């Protein structure tokens, strides 16, 4: 008999079938760990992230819409857990490019090429001090613009503008480095 698809497993799981989540977990736990590790997490942290992702799946399974690709939906949860894991640890040393690039939405192509070998710390060195601090607060520490504005005395609007400028600078820098590699 053919094995049930991921969508069928999530449907059965939604209906309360314990066998379905066991099968889904067995099928994808390895993939989730590999995904978290590919984002720069250590194996132990990746396992914790995977556990958190499955618990979140349990909490939000009612939001899974029938007919939606199961794996893509599930990996949005996994992705959020990876980001939460980075934000939870306020340790810049342990943060890697993946988290950094998550903060810089839309730079997926840059992420793919730069993720492997670029050092975020070195890239940040090119930035002026206030921009570097903004990136650290916003991306590495996961603080909101309002929180940063409160602590720095600047307005949210000016911080957002500075953030966009910094993104543009980094984007240009990534482009240069990419060309150098070629």
């Amino acid at each position, binding site marked *: 008999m053919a094995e049930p698809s991921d969508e069928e497993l999530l449907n059965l799981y939604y209906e309360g*079938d314990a066998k379905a989540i066991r099968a889904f977990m067995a099928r994808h736990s390895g993939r989730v760990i590999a995904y978290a590790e590919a984002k720069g997490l250590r194996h132990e942290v990746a396992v914790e992230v995977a556990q958190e992702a499955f618990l979140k799946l349990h909490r939000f399974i009612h939001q899974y819409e029938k007919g939606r690709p199961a794996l893509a939906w599930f990996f949005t949860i996994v992705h959020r857990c990876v980001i939460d894991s980075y934000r939870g640890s306020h340790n810049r040393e342990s943060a890697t490019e993946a988290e950094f690039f998550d903060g810089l939405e839309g730079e997926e192509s840059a992420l793919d090429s730069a993720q492997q070998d670029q050092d975020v710390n070195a890239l940040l060195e090119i930035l002026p001090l206030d921009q570097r601090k903004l990136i650290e607060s916003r991306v590495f520490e996961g603080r909101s613009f309002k929180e940063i504005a409160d602590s720095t005395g600047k307005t949210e609007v000016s911080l957002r503008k500075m953030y966009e400028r910094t993104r543009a600078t980094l984007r240009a820098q990534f482009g240069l480095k990419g060309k150098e590699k070629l």
Partner: protein
Amino acid sequence: MNAPESQNLALFDKTLKSIERDLVTSPTRLGLTYAAGSLAGYFASLAICAQCSVGLTPVAWHTASILHQIPDPWCPFVCGAIFGIAPVIGTLLFFNRFQHRYLLYRMWWLVVALPIIVSVSFAFAANPHDLEWNLSWLVTAIAVPYLFEVGTGFLLRQSRWKELKTT
């Protein structure tokens, strides 16, 4: 399940167990719990209000005497509703949303059959009322748990039944 899959699963043993606690591992056990909970609910309703000459407590007879003052077209409906609603409330206390969904979507036949079996059996046992009264009582006693379960099913579906419009 192949070897790497079971190896991965071992890492998640604790997580899996905490999730499985909410789910249905044994349909037989769920069915028996539902049947037992429903029967306990029917007994509870007979302890609250005497029905068809059966009352389990003095309070039940007192409630029944008050309800019998209601004009006849309404008395059987009220009595039947009280008889039918108690087991449903009982099951709400026993089951979480996953177990309730399993019951409604996978073991619906039990939810359909149980009120019919219990209500019909009870109506045929020592009943002093006429046919019209009995039929009104029976229809209410069966319809009330059905309506309640349909309402529960509607609430439990949440966003799940929203089919994607895009293909």
